[in-house]
């Protein structure tokens, strides 16, 4: 299995960051970067990375199932992650999440039928002083309100 050129370069960089014989250390970021490109961790991706780092596939499975950002299930093109942890919650994050569910017509862990959006309630994302905060894929959006969320979803709906 081949990945894009940039990703291959990134893999090489990750592996070369460690002393010889310690390639396995590149595993966690490699999985995350591969997921970013492919969308989710398919069995093929897992097998490929396991092979490259010479880690048994089932040990890669152990790692994948541990980290909350790693997923084997496809997500929407825009993965809406709403922090409801304490600081954000104090500023209305739970209502924001409810609003998002209704607007998108999906629950947490689900994908809209058109595959555009998926929704997840997440733990603190390090934006406590600018909450309620959400992340769409890796992009942060701070000081969110239901209205701002509507506008954002509208934009993303139109995005190519």
């Amino acid at each position: 299995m081949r990945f894009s050129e940039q990703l291959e370069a990134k893999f090489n960089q990750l592996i070369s960051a460690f002393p010889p014989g310690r390639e396995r250390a590149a595993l966690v970021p490699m999985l995350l970067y591969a997921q970013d490109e492919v969308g989710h961790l398919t069995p093929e991706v897992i097998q490929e990375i396991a092979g490259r780092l010479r880690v048994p596939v089932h040990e890669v499975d152990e790692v994948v199932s541990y980290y909350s950002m790693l997923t084997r299930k496809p997500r929407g093109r825009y993965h809406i992650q709403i922090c409801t942890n304490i600081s954000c919650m104090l500023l209305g994050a739970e209502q924001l999440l409810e609003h998002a569910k209704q607007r998108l017509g999906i629950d947490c862990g689900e994908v809209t039928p058109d595959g555009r959006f998926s929704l997840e309630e997440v733990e603190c994302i390090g934006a406590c002083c600018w909450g309620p905060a959400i992340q769409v894929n890796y992009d942060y959006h701070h000081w969110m309100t239901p209205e701002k969320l509507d506008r954002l979803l509208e934009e993303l709906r139109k995005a190519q």
Partner: protein
Amino acid sequence: MSPRLYNEPSPLEVKILTRRFGLPNSQSIDTYLATGGYEAFRKALEMTPEEIIEEVKASNLRGRGGAGFPTGMKWGFVPRESPLPKYVVVNADEGEPGTCKDRLLMEHDPHQLLEGMLIAARAVGAERGYIYIRGEYRYLIEILDRAIGEAYERGFLGDNILGTGMRFHVYTHSGAGSYECGEESALLESLEGKRGVPRIRPPFPATAGLFQCPTVLNNVETFCAIPAIIRDGGKAFAALGTPRNGGTRLFCISGHVNRPGVYELPMGFNLLRMIHEVAGGVRDGRKLKAVIPGGSSCPVLKAEECDLPMDFDSVAQAGSMLGSGGVVVMDETTDMVRVAVRIAKFYQHESCGWCVPCREGTTWLRHLLTRIDQGIAKPSELDLVVEICNNMLGRTFCPLGDAAAMPIRSFVMKFREEFEARLRRPMVAVPDPDSLVVS
């Protein structure tokens, strides 16, 4: 693209680590060099490793990651002579709810972090450094990688740094979603490509860390304080704070305040002043109800307990912890039961599952508190919450269990009437099944 984050500074701030925040191009090495950057490192090159460590000890710098362990002492534990390679590892996992300061330090002034790492490398003789960044902070990896590239270009990193023969390489490394990976030994496991499960200690990272080699592991902010300490001397840094609590630290004031933000204040700064004078007071003129002073792992303080200096020792004396500097402010409208449930949910979600009391205790607490919130519990079960917490405290494999039990116990003990009131509400016939699902 994520917006550049920066809140209006407060005139009460003492800007040491954050002094470049807001400068145009503050990320670039040119800005950094123009404002005294890498001078501390040049100075460190003239010092012996022992002198560097002595300077850090003199600064009374205590770890900014949460535990507040004296940094100089920690560096001193790294064996001088070792046949094994040594490593510098930056804990940029910033997962403690209420905390968002490391993000700013890396976003605005990445070279300051690199310089701190370089000085640490020089002090212990490490040749490789890793910045372990939580997966969500992807954009910071780009910023840091650019800064690292600049540092190589200007000769501050590489195999022959500034012609001195010193060798040091720095790499960024992404996590993938796990609060436990902020715990130092779990972080090292994750950095080795494994599940983020903590290790038995001793041995500590200083002697057997990454790949079982001697490792200096500190929080981002801790490393960022190093250049100032070497540049101006440990004494000067210490003098900014209180005895045994040197320097300034970044406080993340969030929640019900008018001007939430990250502020650099001297150690020992009064908490009430912080809320009222620095962060603009409680939102909408409401009354202060409670504060979590150092991130969600710390016991809550009632409003009347908040008149206290914010340093490790004073906050500990008040029965809480300074932790990671996440000051979460709650006004009189706050529903303490909901807050407790949310905290319980967080720790249950993040427990790695390795040890029994944490794995089972956090789960039990989450279910029980959810039931209490729904008003379908017996009053005696409030005592059970406290007992479960007591049964976890000090008995778990790593401090995550304590981090869960301490705040929850404090909420129930300090705001018991609110929990009791919940149980006097008319009973809900059936619990909301979704709220009981463990995710």
